[in-house]
């Protein structure tokens, strides 16, 4: 019976391509949306993860970078430095703003770096320098490429012109990019020299970041202290919590489309083999055996569709990567399990209509040519 399912499925190649293609595209809808948000989640935490810090200290109540602002008095730095277990402390200035190149305005985290900053600077520089001096900026390579500029050109940040002296990798997401300027420029343009945005802390060898974080929290007032892992998790959670409802709606529509396509395919395939099913029934095949054939056919189609959908998503992720769109498609294990589960449900449901067809099939009618 499984052989029959195989034969039914592969006999008409065009129908196979269309049906598997339809299911693959429906599953691709779910996979690619998941992949877009997983990509954003990864890219949005990439600065935090590559900051070289063990601990992030922020204004009280501030637990992440994205869509947030943090401001602390500069003296907090020495208080944190004095906490046992702290090896080094590096302040950064941060504001969410724009990198302006001609008419192009690119949303960016603007990071003000102190001279010789040991933490919080660019981690992968593809061209130029990794630390900006006054009047200089380091920006993301794809942002620069998309706007047609390179090293030595000028960009506008916080209303001032900066010379691009470095181009970084992995610092752009669908939402924004990261740009680095000197702390002196940052405070001249934005602010108050007496304040800092975040403190990046390195702990001494042998110390656990979580223990040192607890110590800082207990000894320094009006700050929120988290390990780098916790800080990145909070950042990821912002994207996840924002997108959950949207993803649920899109998944439901993708699921329904997949179901309609699959039901149509299995129904059409069963219908065209109606006579054969009738002959099998006349030869003594039980309804259950025929149901199994239909179900096997549906499961096979959906699984092939799932694999094709996955392959297209992976190909899309390469294409998107190559196009320099600041968008990353990342297929996660959770997403794979979810879509595989949905595929099996689709296969089960789509077999209902043809099974009803077979149940009502009169073997004698087949021989009468009906």
């Amino acid at each position, binding site marked *: 019976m499984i052989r029959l399912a195989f034969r039914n499925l592969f006999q*008409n190649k*065009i*129908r196979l391509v*269309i*049906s598997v*293609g*339809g299911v693959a*595209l429906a599953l*691709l*809808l779910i996979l*690619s*949306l998941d992949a*877009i948000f997983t990509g954003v989640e990864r890219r949005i935490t990439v600065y935090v993860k590559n900051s070289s810090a063990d601990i992030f200290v922020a*204004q*009280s*109540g*501030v*637990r*992440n970078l994205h*869509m*947030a*602002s943090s*401001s602390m*008095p500069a003296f907090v730095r020495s208080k944190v430095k004095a906490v046992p277990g702290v090896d080094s402390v590096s302040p950064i200035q941060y504001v*969410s*703003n*724009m990198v*302006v190149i001609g008419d192009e*305005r690119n*949303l960016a985290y603007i990071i003000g770096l102190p001279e010789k900053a040991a933490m919080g600077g660019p981690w992968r520089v593809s061209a130029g320098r990794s630390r900006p001096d006054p009047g200089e900026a380091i920006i993301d390579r794809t942002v620069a490429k998309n706007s047609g500029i390179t090293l030595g050109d000028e960009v*506008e940040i*916080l*209303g001032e012109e900066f010379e691009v002296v470095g181009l970084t990798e992995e610092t752009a997401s*669908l*939402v924004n990019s990261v740009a680095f300027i000197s702390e002196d420029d940052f405070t001249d343009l*934005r602010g*108050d020299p007496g304040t800092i945005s975040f403190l990046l802390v390195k702990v001494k060898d042998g110390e656990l970041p979580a223990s040192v974080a607890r110590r800082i929290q207990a000894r320094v007032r009006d700050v*929120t202290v988290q390990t780098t892992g916790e800080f990145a998790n*909070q950042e990821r*959670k*912002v994207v996840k*919590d*924002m997108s959950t*409802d*949207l993803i649920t*709606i899109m998944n439901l*529509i*993708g699921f329904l*489309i997949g179901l*309609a*396509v699959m*039901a*149509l395919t299995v*129904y*059409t395939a069963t*219908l*065209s083999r109606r006579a054969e099913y009738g002959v099998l029934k006349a030869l003594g095949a039980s309804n259950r055996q025929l149901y199994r054939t239909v179900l096997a056919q549906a499961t096979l189609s959906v699984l092939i569709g799932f694999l094709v959908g996955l392959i297209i998503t992976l190909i899309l992720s390469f294409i998107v990567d190559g196009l320099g*769109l600041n*968008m990353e498609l990342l297929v996660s294990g959770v997403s794979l399990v979810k879509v595989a589960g949905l595929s099996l449900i689709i296969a089960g449901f789509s077999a209902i*209509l043809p099974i009803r067809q077979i149940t009502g099939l009169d073997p004698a009618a087949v021989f009468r040519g009906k």
Partner: protein
Amino acid sequence: MYLSRRNLLQDKTRLALSIAGVALAVLLILVLDGFLTGMNRQITSYLDHSPGSIIVAQEDVVNLLGATSLLPTAVSSEAEAIRGVEEAIPILSQFVILDLHDKKQPAYMVGYDPDQGGGPWELSAGREPRTKREIVFDRILAARHNLKIGDTVEVLDNEFTITGLSNGTTSWMTSYFFLKKTAAEDLLLVPQATSFLMITTSDGADLGYIVQRLNKISGVNALTKTNMAANDLKLFAKIFSMPIKLMVSIAFLVGTMVVGLVIYSATVERQREYGVLKAIGAANHILYQIVLLQALTASLAGAALGTALAYGAGELIMVTRPQFLILYAPADVGWALSAGLGMALLAALFPVRVVAGLAPAEVFRK
């Protein structure tokens, strides 16, 4: 014509499934489009309802939502000295992330002076804040987290009591909340700071002249509210257009595949009849028309059903998830039908190949 109808209607279940497939694909395209239109409306809601017609921001800042702005302190009085300016209403605003029931909720905090304006434009319940510990919260966000007037919410580790609930101040990404400007200054540790000035002008004042004069003040950028709203829309369109285009393209392809599958199956089943028609002298283009007509009927019926479903789905989504605003324009129906037409034309390519390759003599040999 008759043959097309008979082929299509011969198996009603198959036809129903194909129309459902196209309808769902069109539904997805329309919902995505409606979602984008609704989001655009929500993005500019504050600018649409705040007082004044000109906004003064920090130099180089052209967006309300995309960038933080801090104005030099003397700007307000300098702005009010310009002929035609009635009032310069200050706000201090900033995105913050609220932790509500273990969920991260990005929110746009607006610190304003209730005597001057710039706060919530419609209260569904309660009143505006009177003290530094009071807050007006978005009605939908409050309902999602079971918060009522008199409850407290934590903003940057400070507790505020909800005194009012505002209408029209939410979106799926973020919601607005309002507190006294002095309270926002304390929260952000920026005493006396102002992010934006909203400029109201006297009747008949020349906006162009006022914008020009305002831009002569050092360290500021003045622009009309319309321009700032357009900048915000452009910024968010840049972020969302690519994923939405990707989704719409996939939905279109799915619809095409569905129609293609149905018309292809119907054509293959009737292969002998097409062969006979060819044998008795029917030109290929006549047969193509028959195939195309079937594809058109299935696609356009699917597009019409999809449009009706999209309106229903939009309402359902907005009732169950009120933070989403899904808006359809009459032109969207045209788009849906065009999508259906496009799907039909592409889908007809599969069966047309079958008909074109058909040898009339074959049917008599079988």
